[in-house]
């Protein structure tokens, strides 16, 4: 019979495992690890891939192409500022999808600060967003500089949108309720297009509190895939 005896002394100070019938315990194979199966029945239900290419692992959503929304971000060293959100509406003003939003507001910070990104929250009905949606769009703090956020021409449910003209919007909090909103139209279809967004400060004097965003413009690249672009890292390692 193989047994492992582990004396635990005091507040676990001994840290010694006495082994019976086993040597080099730290380097032996785990006798209970028959495979890397992760199913409850020990028989994984994962299907075999149809090919060895990466494309086999990307959902087959045939999209029109890729919209790159470019912007220059500044950092404002003042209270209740630096919150931004990017979203898409159709030409009639119907909400399509949120691309990214600052994590404080997206994660519920608007309960503490109702001035945070009100236009985006109203358009997206964000108070009723699912946890999955919140986690998808949360935008980590970005350094000042030129950045790009991408729209893969899908809606909030992941379905490809129809060809047509869409509105991209960017809202930013400059100082408490003082905001800047950029709005631009972009046509997605078979042709590549480029547009620049128009800026509105809300209220009109908001600009006197600082510039948060400028030079917001979008490029549509017909047929381009989201998988082909380099984005800001989607993943952080943090203490747990």
């Amino acid at each position, binding site marked *: 019979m193989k*047994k492992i005896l582990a004396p635990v002394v005091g507040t676990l100070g001994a840290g010694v495992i006495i082994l019976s019938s086993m040597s080099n315990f*730290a380097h032996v194979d*785990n006798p209970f690890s*028959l495979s*890397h199966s992760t199913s409850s029945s020990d028989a994984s239900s994962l299907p075999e891939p149809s090919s060895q290419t990466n494309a086999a692992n*990307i959902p087959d959503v045939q999209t029109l192409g890729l919209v790159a929304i470019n912007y220059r971000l500044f950092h404002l060293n003042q209270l209740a500022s630096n919150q931004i959100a990017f979203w898409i509406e159709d030409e009639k003003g119907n909400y399509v999808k949120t691309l990214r939003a600052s994590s404080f507001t997206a994660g519920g910070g608007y309960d503490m600060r109702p001035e945070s990104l009100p236009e985006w929250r109203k358009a997206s009905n964000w108070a009723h967003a699912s946890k999955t949606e919140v986690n998808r769009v949360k935008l980590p703090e970005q350094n000042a500089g030129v950045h790009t956020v991408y729209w893969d021409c899908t809606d909030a449910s992941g379905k490809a949108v129809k060809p047509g003209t869409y509105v991209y919007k960017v809202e930013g909090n400059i100082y408490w309720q003082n905001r800047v909103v950029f709005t631009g139209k972009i046509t997605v279809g078979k042709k590549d297009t480029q547009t620049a967004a128009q800026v509105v400060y809300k209220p009109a004097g908001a600009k006197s509190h600082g510039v948060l965003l400028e030079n917001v413009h979008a490029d549509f690249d017909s047929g381009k895939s989201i998988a082909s672009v380099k984005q800001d*890292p989607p993943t952080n390692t943090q*203490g747990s």
Partner: protein
Amino acid sequence: MPEFHSNQMNTHVQTSGINAPDACEVFEWMSLVENQFSRFLEDSELSHVNRRAGQITLVSQKFAELLFEALRFYSETSGIFNPFLGQLMCEIGYDCSFEKINYQHEHRDKEENPAQSANTFFTFDLDQRSVTLSPDSMLDFGGIAKGWAVQKAVLNLIDHGRPRGLVNAGGDIMCWNDTHDRTPWVIGVSHPYKDDQIIGQLAFHIGRWGVATSSKTKRSWRDSGITLHHLIDPRNGSPSDSDIIQATVIGPALLPCEIYAKCLLILGSQDGPAWLRAIQPDCAYLFIMEDGQLIMSSNLNDYIHEQFPKKIILSAQ
């Protein structure tokens, strides 16, 4: 690049580069692991084993597998990683799911001093697949189950021919890239007090990689005016007071990285690096010290995508 998100094991789980059915499989597996190994769920197998302390208890194959891994690291780390701390964790107040701790502490009877565990024993019969815990001890897989679950999920996907992907469970990350796709995985290392702020970036090209970070600033709570955290130094039974506040470890698999990150944080910057070199020289590490200085192993340069500062400002604000 598709991403899928879920909340499992009291943490945020994210997949990248794998399809929706595979992501569902990962999430279901993580849920299964939580239900089987949580110390805070009465119906879990771990709770069953702990309740039967002092008696011979038959365990499932998965339980035996994870227990074996825990004992392997207990042995390899000379007890710095210790799965027998369940009772001690309860005694210092980590006796419920973390988000409930501060509330519970306002409403519980205080113990003057946590009881010290008496001399005790533990038996794991491999043939019978049974466990006998001494009456005054409890197993706790909190420091290993998440990394083990992610690593198994990833190895299962690799076994099934998935060429590229990433699974992130609350900062414990495993990613892989085969030779068909040379786009690197880029992973940011978060500020100890601000998860949204990245202090530098790592990039991983062809191969399999585990990245784990352990921090004293997470899962900490206040009891009777004293700040406590979940990283217990088994040499004295108290929350670690080493000079490191956050440790990140990078290696070819996640589970060892998760274990070593905790051990390094406990051992501190004086003893930790030599200790890690002795048992696993291929692993790279990054420490954030109490004064904000960064210390990194020379082999971390192999992974740096965006340079790290020499020092960061530590502020919870």
